[in-house]
C-alpha cells in the first residue's frame, strides 16, 4: 500500500523523544489556562475533565497501534511505549487534579475511593497502569522476559475498559460522548479476540 509506505517513511524520521516532548505539554497547557482564566469560572472541574479525556484519547491511540498495523500496514509500533507512558502521565495528572485541587481532604479521598463506585473503578484502572508504567523500560523487559512482560502488559486492556466505564458512570443523564468512548475502546479490544483475528486472516 502506497499510503502505508509513505506514512512509515515519515514515521522513521520522527524521533521518539519528539512524541514525549509534545505529549508532556497538554496538561501543562491546561494548567496554565486554568491559572489564567482560560478554563472558565470553575477551572478545577474543567482541568480534571480535560485531562481525563486526554488520558482516554491516549489509551485509544495505544490500543489502535496494533490493529492499525494489521489492517493498514501503517507501523507506529516504535511510538507505542511512549504513548503508553504518556497515558500513565495523563491519568496521574487527572488523579492529582482530583486529589489536590478538587477534593483536598485526604480523609474524604479515601472515603470516596471506597464508597463511590465510579471512583473505585477509576482508581482500579490507575492501579493496573502502575506496574505497566514501572516496567516500561528495556531493563524490565529483559528481566521479565518477553512472554511474561507481554502477559503483564495485557493489563492495558482491563485498564482501558475501566477507564471508559469510569467515564460512563460519572455522566448525568443519557449522554452520548462517554458511550462513544466506551464503544471505541470495546471495539479496539474486540479486534484482539482470537475469532476476530482469524476472521480477518481467513
Amino acid at each position: 500500500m502506497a499510503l502505508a509506505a509513505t506514512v512509515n517513511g515519515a514515521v522513521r524520521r520522527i524521533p521518539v523523544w519528539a512524541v514525549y516532548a509534545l505529549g508532556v505539554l497538554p496538561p501543562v497547557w491546561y494548567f496554565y489556562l486554568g491559572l489564567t482564566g482560560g478554563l472558565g469560572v470553575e477551572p478545577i472541574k474543567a482541568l480534571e475533565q480535560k485531562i481525563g479525556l486526554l488520558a482516554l484519547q491516549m489509551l485509544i491511540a495505544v490500543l489502535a497501534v496494533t490493529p492499525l498495523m494489521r489492517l493498514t500496514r501503517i507501523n507506529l509500533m516504535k511510538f507505542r511505549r511512549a504513548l503508553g507512558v504518556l497515558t500513565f502521565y495523563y491519568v496521574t495528572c487527572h488523579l492529582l487534579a482530583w486529589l489536590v485541587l478538587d477534593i483536598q481532604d485526604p480523609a474524604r479521598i479515601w472515603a470516596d475511593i471506597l464508597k463511590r463506585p465510579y471512583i473505585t473503578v477509576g482508581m482500579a484502572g490507575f492501579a493496573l497502569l502502575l506496574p505497566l508504567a514501572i516496567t516500561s523500560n528495556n531493563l524490565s523487559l529483559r528481566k521479565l522476559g518477553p512472554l511474561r512482560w507481554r502477559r503483564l502488559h495485557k493489563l492495558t486492556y482491563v485498564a482501558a475498559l475501566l477507564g471508559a466505564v469510569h467515564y460512563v458512570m460519572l455522566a448525568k443523564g443519557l449522554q452520548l460522548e462517554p458511550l462513544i468512548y466506551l464503544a471505541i475502546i470495546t471495539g479496539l479490544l474486540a479486534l484482539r479476540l482470537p475469532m476476530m483475528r482469524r476472521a480477518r486472516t481467513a
Partner: protein
Amino acid sequence: MAGRFKSTLRWSQVTPEAQYLDRRQLMGGAGALALSAAILPRGAAAASRYSTDAEPNSYEDITSYNNFYEFGTGKGDPEDHAGQLTTEPWSVKIDGLVDRPGTYGFDDIMAKMTVEERIYRLRCVEAWSMVVPWMGFELADLLDIVGVKPSARFISFETLVRPEEMPGQKYPVLDWPYREGLRLDEARHPLTILATGLYGKPMPNQNGAPLRLVVPWKYGFKSIKSIVRITATDSQPQSTWNMQAPREYGFYSNVNPEVDHPRWSQATERRVGGGLFSRRQDTLMFNGYGDEVASLYAGMDLQKNF
C-alpha cells in the same frame, strides 16, 4: 406580597456591576455607566470585607457556568446556544386545580406583580455553589391571583420544549419536557420566587429566561427554568431528575450535607469563581435557610425523603 422576606445577604456582598461589565460595554453605553455608578458606591464599600471567605459571584460567573441541558450538557453550552431562544412573546399555561385556569401572558403577569431583589445562595447538586442577586416575585402572589383550590396539594412546572431553538432537546439526554414540582406549602413559602432577572437586568436566556423558579433551600435542579406551564395537582408530580435516577435525586432534594449523592459527598461545596486553588466550604443544612424552612419538614425522615 413583596417585602415579606428579609434576606441576610446584602447588596454589599454582590460584585459591583462595574467589575463584570467589560470595558467596551462601559465605554459604549452611557446608560450602563449611569447604572454602574448608581450601584458602585454600595457595592464597593463592603466588597473587601467579604473577599476572603464568601466571594460573591460576578455576572460572568452566573451567566457562563450553567446547567441547562436543553442547550447541551456542557457548562458553557447554555451561554453558547441560548441566545437563539425567543422569549417574546411568552405565556404560561396555568391549569389543574385552580379557580382561574388559562394562558397568562408574561407581560400581563408582570403587570400584576411587584418585582424585588432577592440575593440567594444557590447550591447545585453537583457540589458547587454561587450567590445570585435575583429579581423576581413570590410564587405565592401568582398562585393567589389564579386561586388554588383547597384540594390542591402540589404545584408542578414544565419547561418549554422547542428543539429548533433548544439544540439539547434533539437528544434524549432527559425525558423532555423538563418537569419539576413542589409541595403546596413549599410553593407558597415566601422564599420561593419566580425570578425574572438578575443583577437588575432581565433574566439572561441561559439562566432560564424569561421566568424561572428559585427555591434556595433545594438543590439547583429543582429551580426549573423557562417555565411555560404551572399546574396545581392533588398528587405528587413527576420531576425530571427523579424520573431519570430515583436513587440519586429525590422529589424533595433539600440541600442536606448529611445525605450524600450516591456518587459524591454533599458535605462540602465549592463556590464558583475561586480559581484553580479554591477551597471547599461546608454545606449548610437547607443551604443555610433552616430557620425559615426546617418547620416544613418537622417529623419527616429526611434520610428517606431526600
